[in-house]
């Protein structure tokens, strides 16, 4: 199971057949294990890490830190769930330290992101305050470096 997950995490497009060869179980077993993990929600989705800048598309990302004032009987989960419903919000995390929630927001321009935060997030009743950090450049995303990868320069034949 863990073996299959590790392979899929590094390349979700890999053929079932290839996974079968690498793990030493049959193709049918691999397929059924994957299906089972999809059903259980262990595999949430298959996604692609894209360098949008290289593709010529402009996106603006911002990290928003939020201070939350909890009201009676509703916890962090409730507010997080509300915030998560906005499609502009790419991630929501409960964090330790000076703030309570950390969001990643994506928009087409700084203005769009700024207005989204001001109008949709800051206005929520439980939100006491927000701090917006605009992302200037992404160097590593989901474990993948986005600048030129290092290669080991090995001799072609060695003992």
């Amino acid at each position, binding site marked *: 199971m863990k073996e299959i997950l590790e392979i899929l995490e590094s390349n979700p497009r890999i053929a079932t057949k290839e996974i079968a*060869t690498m793990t030493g179980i049959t193709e049918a077993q691999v397929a059924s294990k994957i299906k089972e993990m999809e059903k259980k929600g262990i595999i949430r989705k298959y996604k692609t890490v894209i360098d949008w800048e290289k593709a010529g598309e402009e996106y603006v990302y911002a990290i928003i830190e939020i201070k939350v004032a909890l009201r009676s009987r509703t916890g962090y989960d409730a507010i997080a769930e509300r915030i998560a419903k906005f499609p502009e919000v790419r991630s929501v995390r409960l964090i330790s330290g000076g703030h309570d929630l950390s969001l990643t927001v994506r928009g087409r321009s700084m203005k769009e992101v700024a207005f989204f935060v001001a109008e949709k997030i800051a206005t929520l009743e439980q939100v006491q305050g927000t701090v917006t950090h605009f992302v200037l450049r992404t160097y590593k995303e989901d474990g993948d470096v986005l600048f030129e990868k290092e290669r080991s320069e090995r001799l072609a034949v060695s003992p």
Partner: protein
Amino acid sequence: MSYSRKSAQSALLSPREARPEKFVAEHVRQIPPSGIRKFFDLVLEMEGVISLGVGEPDFVTPWHIREACIYSLEKGTTSYTSNYGLLELRELISKCYRKEQGVDYDPKSEVLVTTGVSEAADLAFRAVIDPGDEVIVPEPCYVSYKPSVSLAGGTPIPVPTYQKNEFRVTAEQIEKNITKKTKAIVLSYPNNPTGAVMRKKDLEDIADVVIENDLVVISDEVYGKLTYDGAHTCFSSLTGMRERSIILNGFSKSHAMTGLRLGYAVGSEPLIAAMTKIHQYAMLCAPVTAQMGGIEALKNGDSEVQKMTREYDRRRRLVVSGLNKMGLDCFEPMGAFYAFPSIKSTGLTSGEFAERLLKEHKVAVVPGDVFGECGEGYLRCSYATSREQLVEALSRIEAFLDSL
């Protein structure tokens, strides 16, 4: 005195003319050059070659280890260390053997840090061999044992191993080759080039022969961390073998640190002391930057090693099943990162196969006979290369087979 062309010419022809080649000692002249060299030169001339000929990991040294090396340079840690190596590193090595193999080595006198495992092997041979001593070397094996034994004044006695025995050497085979002159046995499992591993029982049988004939074992276990079917058994962990063996190991393969040149030997005090005597004159100490990296590797490197091993295991299955499917009979290697398929069905020799595969389909492999006569009819294919490259290489090999 004026210069004259005539006298210059006569000087050239005079018996005093220097011929540097004649200064080369006879016993060095007799050592054949490594068969790998020829392929290396061929590959250099070509473009677009996928190489399965590489005896080192394709991973770059894990970042935390490189950072430790860089940091040590920033701090100015650039001086000699003790001949034995940094004590902290030796303590970590000793701890490792106690924890993983249950063998105790005193870090002060029974661990020697060397400039790569190759140096450790050379020291071990020179420390135990007297002129004329015979050393049993099971083949196929790493290319340096036989020349190193010869350079140390000994006589290497190659013992062939076979696919039907999964390239394990047996106690009987060793026993058959023992003479009055036999001094030592070389073991190198997990094996380069076959990927063979020894089972504990096989080693115990050999241990009996070792005691009976009063021999010493030099066991190169540099691939010890790369096993795919249970943990590796260190030879000195067997009853009575601690005092009768020198274990060679290093960081090149397990931690992808080949170019940093860091190895070590562990053994009982008199043997390590003898090796250190040679090491202190020939090498003084292993590079300190590499030693600092080694400390970090042993302290915090386990998870990276496991990650790399798991990836090798996937590639191993990919390559072995691919080779077998296309009709090249390949036994399942359980260690290191090599597959050793038989090409006997093609009717070509290892050399012919490898050369044509390289020239016609641009895949570099190493002919098996480079690692000993009994390696003829086989190829060493390293799977320490990305999966994409392996898949492409396999399809090229298949195309080559179809063209025969």
